[in-house]
């Protein structure tokens, strides 16, 4: 049966997989939905398609709905993240000249130690480091600012972070317009394949559990279409669970490779899904566990504290009041809608809606429906943590 058709926008990236799989493997049909997947040319266009109602839902960079809530950037229409779509999935890469200087200085490209790689990168840079990211409001930009400023490079002044569309990233690297990049797969691997770049780190080496993409809808749509949004959350949750099964990997890469989705060879797409990367044109390989997560450890649960971490970072670098920003971001991620949609279906929903980001150092059991939920480590490379309540609470005391 074909139920109501929902149009859902996506950007051709590996982490669009839950939406592609929800439609192609029948998880949407199981919920009585037909997803009309619309490939968008850029993040700003996709955001506008969503804001103006040309699509009902969208694959979206997690900071975009937060930026809207803070009133920064080109859009102020309220957006809600009704589910996280993926955790992690980015790579940091450098051009070949910089890669050579790093090697000459003794860096081994272990693809693991963010502190060592960051110090080596800062030392090897000549002038302000120019780094390409896909969008000004992206986890890519937030990870870079967090990483480099923690290592002593003043951000945003000490680093020149530029917007480069992912398909043009390899070209910009080759043309010498940027020294480095942080981009979602498969675009980092494509720079390696084209012989213009080397991969320095997976994003997960900077923050081991970073909410990367969310399923975004307009806040008013979420309010007026609770039934459709619940079905969509469920379809995407089933797709994520299917993707987490290692047996699904080959088929998932084949699906994503199709002309209407990524239109790229499945072999390149498989690198992100398997975590086996070729990090340099010389063919060296590195393995990353949990390179991109679609399900494990409640990966798609939209923690309020994740949105608040993003708000705190955005406020810090844009000169906004941090307490106000953290408060404004509170309602952007919607654990309430996620939980209501999956109650009785997902066996392990967290009991809490907020956590101290960066505090889980080893896989830890937490309170959940079945009592069997384990949260994987969510640490930052520098072992700092972020407690949104510690930022909001003191101010509330003064107010009352």
């Amino acid at each position, binding site marked *: 049966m074909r139920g109501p058709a929902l149009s859902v926008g996506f950007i051709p990236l590996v982490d669009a997989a839950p939406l592609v799989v929800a439609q192609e493997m029948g998880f949407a049909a199981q919920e009585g939905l037909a997803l009309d997947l619309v490939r968008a040319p850029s993040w*700003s*266009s996709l955001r506008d398609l969503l804001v103006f109602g040309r699509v009902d839902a969208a694959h979206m960079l997690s900071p975009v709905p937060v930026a809207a809530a803070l009133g920064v950037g*080109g859009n102020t229409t309220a957006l809600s993240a009704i589910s996280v779509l993926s955790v992690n999935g980015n790579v940091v890469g450098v051009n070949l000249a910089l890669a050579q200087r790093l090697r000459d200085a003794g860096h081994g490209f272990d693809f693991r130690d963010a502190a060592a790689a960051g110090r080596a990168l800062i030392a090897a840079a000549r002038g302000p480091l120019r780094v390409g990211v896909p969008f*000004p409001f992206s986890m890519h930009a937030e990870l870079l600012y967090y990483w480099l400023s923690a290592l002593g490079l003043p951000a945003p002044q000490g680093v020149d972070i*530029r*917007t480069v*569309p992912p398909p*043009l990233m390899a070209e910009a690297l080759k043309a010498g317009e940027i020294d480095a990049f942080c981009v979602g797969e498969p675009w980092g691997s494509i720079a390696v394949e084209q012989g213009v770049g080397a991969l320095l780190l997976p994003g997960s080496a900077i923050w081991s559990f970073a909410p990367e993409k969310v399923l975004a809808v307009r806040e008013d749509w979420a309010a007026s279409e609770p039934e459709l949004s619940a079905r969509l959350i469920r379809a995407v949750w089933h797709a994520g669970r299917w993707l987490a099964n290692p047996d699904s990997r080959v088929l998932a890469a084949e699906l994503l490779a199709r002309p209407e989705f990524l239109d790229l060879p499945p072999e390149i797409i498989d690198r992100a899904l398997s975590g086996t990367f070729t990090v340099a044109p010389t063919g060296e390989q590195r393995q990353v566990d949990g390179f991109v997560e679609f399900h494990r450890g409640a990966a798609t649960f939209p923690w309020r504290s994740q949105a608040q971490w993003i708000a705190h970072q955005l406020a810090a670098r844009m000169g906004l009041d941090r307490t106000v920003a953290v408060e404004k971001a509170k309602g952007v991620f919607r654990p309430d809608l996620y939980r209501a949609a999956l109650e009785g279906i997902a066996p392990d929903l967290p009991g809490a809606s907020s956590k101290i980001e960066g505090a889980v150092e080893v896989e830890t059991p937490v309170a959940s429906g079945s009592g069997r939920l384990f949260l994987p480590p969510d640490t930052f490379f520098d072992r700092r943590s972020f407690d949104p309540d510690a930022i909001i609470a003191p101010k509330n005391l003064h107010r009352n």
Partner: protein
Amino acid sequence: MLWRMNGPLSIAVIENDPDRAALISESLHATGNVEVHVLTGAADLAEHITGLNPDVVLIDIANPSRDMLEAMAMATGPLERPVAMFVDRSDESLTRAAIEAGVSAYVVDGLHSDRLKPILDAAVSRFNMFSRMRTELETTKRALEERKVIDRAKGLLMKARGIDEDEAYALLRKTAMDQGKRLADVAQALVTTFGLLS
């Protein structure tokens, strides 16, 4: 305000196709006192735009370089001109029309809508024309391809069954009608089958 109140309005058009760029320029010039600069969507686009300091930037929605302009919409330094995005503006019907037509506009903050509207109207109608042209082109191309396949199918039938062209065509048409299919699809099936058998 730093921008010129009464001088020519400076418009940057980001377009890789020179023919399209010329048509857009022409229609913008027709709206009056404007200065049009055509840029291509290269990676250093943001620098070019900063150097040009235009009042309005027009870009095809399908151009991935559009994301580069988003960073400029946040420039708030004391010497930089704030570039607000058009979709935030009060005239929602015009914004919708622009999005439907496939053009997006970035506009310097404070630019009066009286000056902006004719520019956007011109851009919208030009982009609508492009999308019509594209549809027509695709239709023509498809018709031509179908015509070729039908001709090949006729040729195969004439040879295989020793009939003339009119009879071959009548046979194809009858088969299509009997099967409730398009003539071109029947012809394609025949050509494919012949290719497999020969």
